[in-house]
């Protein structure tokens, strides 16, 4: 190991914890939207730009009320196009920033998710999913933005997406979302759904010194040595902020390590592959699951978000019938855990994938399983959650 890398590792080992000013330590009875806001504050975010949209608005409403008491800014922008780029201006000025929306607004934000991916702007986009397409079901749940979160902006890029299934996770995983955004300099999609956003449960907020936060990967290089998009082996460049004195350039155009536009195929290839590989090479580190009785299972139910809680009942009912059913909950939806699914596919008869859409993540499961195990969708067009009976029927069919 070179001395430089050792130093980099030492820096990584330093433990950074939350600023107590933003942490509402205690036991709360709180809905998922509010818990998400508290997670953002605990993670050190002091900037949000938003535009009202059901069922996500409570997140920014709480932020607007809380942030002037902890030193920060909320601005309600004129539309989601504005909100999704205002937050990025704030990030380049030194803030940790996020925005919150739902389906129609998420659609409008797509160009700026691509801009964040291309310029490697660490930030968080919260999408409290509702039924679509178009205006769809403003007040009712769906999980139909999962593919949009992954592929919605043009071009090749990778993002990270997390799926909480409770208000507690809305708190915990929002912090994780900010930490991942900083670690990989990538926009992180926080894929809530209307039910998780509006359900009220116990939320435990720990003391600030028990909350780990990942600081910005700020450069300490000299002005002469600093390359805004130069990397040092780990594929994630060091960042500078406006006003630091580096006089750097940021562009959404294909750029070289100096950040200068260079629209040639070799530079495009190098840049776009790095943007992908910084995430794909770290899938194992980024992926989070909840697993239950996977060993020896014939059928594994793969779910995420609110559907994982509905599926639980079906899984337990199937076990009572004597079926060997495992549960795999995707906490990280993107990058998709191909390897994990492939390994499982070799051991089980079938996967059952209930989700509040007409078939999105199930296709990923089917692709990763590569025919080694059958894959059954339990689709639902949204507007409510599954009847556990419907999931149970498919589990039984899959177990035959």
């Amino acid at each position, binding site marked *: 190991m070179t001395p430089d890398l050792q130093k980099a590792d030492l820096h990584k080992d330093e433990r950074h914890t939350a600023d107590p*000013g933003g942490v509402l330590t205690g036991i709360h009875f709180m809905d998922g939207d509010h818990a998400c806001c508290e997670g953002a504050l605990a993670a050190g975010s*002091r*900037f949000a*730009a938003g535009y009202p949209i059901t069922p996500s608005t409570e997140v920014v409403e709480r932020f607007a009320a809380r942030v*002037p*008491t*902890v*030193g*920060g*800014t909320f*601005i309600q*922008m*004129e*539309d989601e*196009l*504005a*909100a999704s*780029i*205002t*937050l*990025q*201006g*704030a*990030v*380049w*000025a*030194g*803030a940790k*920033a996020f925005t919150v929306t739902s389906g129609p607004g998420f659609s409008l934000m797509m*160009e*700026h998710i691509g*801009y964040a991916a291309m310029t490697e702007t660490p930030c968080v986009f919260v999408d409290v999913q509702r039924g679509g397409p178009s205006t769809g079901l403003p007040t009712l749940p769906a999980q139909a933005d999962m593919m949009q979160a992954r592929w919605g902006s043009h071009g090749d890029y990778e993002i990270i997406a997390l799926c909480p299934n409770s208000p507690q996770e809305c708190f915990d995983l929002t912090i994780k979302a900010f930490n991942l955004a900083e670690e990989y300099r990538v926009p992180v999609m926080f894929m809530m759904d209307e039910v998780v956003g509006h359900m009220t449960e116990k939320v435990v907020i720990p003391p600030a010194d028990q909350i780990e936060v990942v600081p910005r990967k*700020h*450069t*300490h*290089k*000299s*002005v*002469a040595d600093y390359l805004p998009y130069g990397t040092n082996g780990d594929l994630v460049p060091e960042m*500078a*902020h*406006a*006003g*630091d*004195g*580096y*006089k*750097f*350039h*940021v*562009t*959404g*155009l294909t750029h070289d390590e100096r950040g*200068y*536009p260079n629209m040639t195929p070799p530079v495009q290839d190098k840049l776009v592959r790095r943007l992908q590989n910084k995430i794909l090479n770290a899938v194992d580190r980024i992926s989070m699951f909840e697993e239950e009785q996977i060993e020896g299972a014939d059928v594994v139910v793969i779910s995420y978000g609110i559907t994982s809680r509905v599926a639980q009942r079906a899984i337990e009912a199937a076990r009572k019938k004597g079926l060997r059913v495992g549960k795999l909950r995707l906490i990280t939806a993107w990058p998709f855990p191909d390897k994990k699914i492939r390994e499982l596919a070799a051991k089980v008869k079938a996967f059952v994938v209930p989700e509040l859409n007409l078939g999105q993540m199930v296709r990923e499961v089917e692709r990763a399983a590569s025919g080694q195990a059958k894959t059954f969708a339990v689709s639902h067009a949204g507007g409510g959650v599954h009847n556990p009976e419907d999931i149970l029927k498919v589990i039984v069919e899959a177990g035959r």
Partner: protein
Amino acid sequence: MTDSVNTDLVNLEVDPVVNPVEAFLRSDRMPHIWCPGCGIGTTVNSFARALIDSKVDLQTLALVSGIGCTGRVAGYVKLDSFHTTHGRAIPFATGMKLANPKLNVVVYSGDGDLSAIGGNHLIHAARRNIDLKVICVNNLIYAMTGGQSAPTTPDGSTTSTNPYGVFEPSFNLPHLVEAAGAVYVARWTTFHVRQLARAMAEAFQKKGFSFIEVISPCPTLYQRRNKMGDGLDAMKFYKEKSKVRHGAPTSEVGLTMTGEIVVGKFVDRDRPDYQNLMGAQYTHSLGDRYVEQPPVEQEPVCS
């Protein structure tokens, strides 16, 4: 011509070898992409002079551009510079200014970027009176994409998307931004390089949403298609047609294809900017509970 326009640039001592504005440019990115006769480079020259004259701290200056020919300015200035998405330079700059109020944030973009795709952000930033300096280079057309109509293209001219002539009424940008709330509004042409530099320097002294429109030639697309000659002809045209009317009611400064170009400082007023209003409101409502946003921690930079 009622104003004695002095276009002479040599009041500064000029080193015969080094261009005085070179210090503000990324010379490693030259040559630039702008066409011969284009006015955008001229506006950058005036901008650099404004920086020299106003002695703005360059370390705290950030420049934000959108997309288009003028959008490329961000790539050529030796500043913290951000080439954002089409139409969204103003909201990006808004986030930057609010997150670190110590920054001087300049938005440098074109008429199509700022007033068509970005028109909503333009009026809302003016309404909020965000402390931004907006320099709008108006070449009356979408040039980067090959000469399509813009909201500023004058009636009667032809473009690639109005091959039989433009019939849509065009925006009078100074009138629009004044109505929306801008505190400083001026218009000059690329013929008025000194006046333009002075206006830019003046805007730096202003707190709030400032807007400077610069009428600028596009010989390649606008003039060629409309048989208006080359860059030099544009200068002659501007010289002949421009009329300095400081304080002119902005309702009277709309542009036509061949008519008078009213230039000057139209609006210079004071009203509290967004951050002022925000601080006052929170102080009023929250009293001691209001915690001001702490200054951005400066990371140590080795030189």
